[in-house]
């Protein structure tokens, strides 16, 4: 996950590397995702990785929906 100056720079980068355009987050969305994702203390013995359902719920709260943000293939 790279940071770009703007969506135009993302478009240029995708074209240069022959990559399809992926998911775009504003810096504010990215900060909120970082806080939710890494907020729990991994030293805690009860800490566990997020399940796919939990992760998809976090994405959805940030407005990240659609096939790109699903963790499992569609049925």
């Amino acid at each position, binding site marked *: 996950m790279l940071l770009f*100056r703007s969506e135009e720079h993302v478009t240029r980068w995708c074209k240069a590397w022959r990559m399809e355009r*992926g998911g775009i987050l504003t810096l504010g969305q990215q900060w909120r995702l970082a806080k939710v994702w*890494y907020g729990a203390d991994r030293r805690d013995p009860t800490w566990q990785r997020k399940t796919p359902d939990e992760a998809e719920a976090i994405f959805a709260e940030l407005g990240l929906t659609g096939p790109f943000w699903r963790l499992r293939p569609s049925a």
Partner: protein
Amino acid sequence: MTQSTDAFDRDVRRFVYDVVLRRGFPPTTAEAAAGLRATVDEVRACFARLAAGHILVLQSGAGEILMANPFSAVPTPFLVQFDDYACYGNCIWDAMGIVAMRGRDALIKTSCGDCGALMEVRIVTGALQSGEGVAHYALPARRWWDDIVFN
């Protein structure tokens, strides 16, 4: 090691994150073995289990830690500067994740993935104070662990 594998794995995880949060980069297998009064082989086997569980990412070959997410064991284009140390994130998500995990003010320095221009993101008292740009996720979520180093 006389405890169960699960308990040992929890102790190793706690040790790894104790170290990485204190100094900004993860311990070696030798450091973890000394700190946990275990053998290097026991630690190496544990690191492999944690990597299989997507909790750590290991360097190829020696089995040392490459990523204790969100921290990187090696320099990357995502420098995170605190008042007590500087460290590296694996990507922009992880660089911000380090700041979130530590709960301290920080300045992230990276560059535009396209043009290479310096980009700075400042986080103060838990809020985004300055910075611009957008984060781009090249791979769909279900493929992130196919090649986590690229991603």
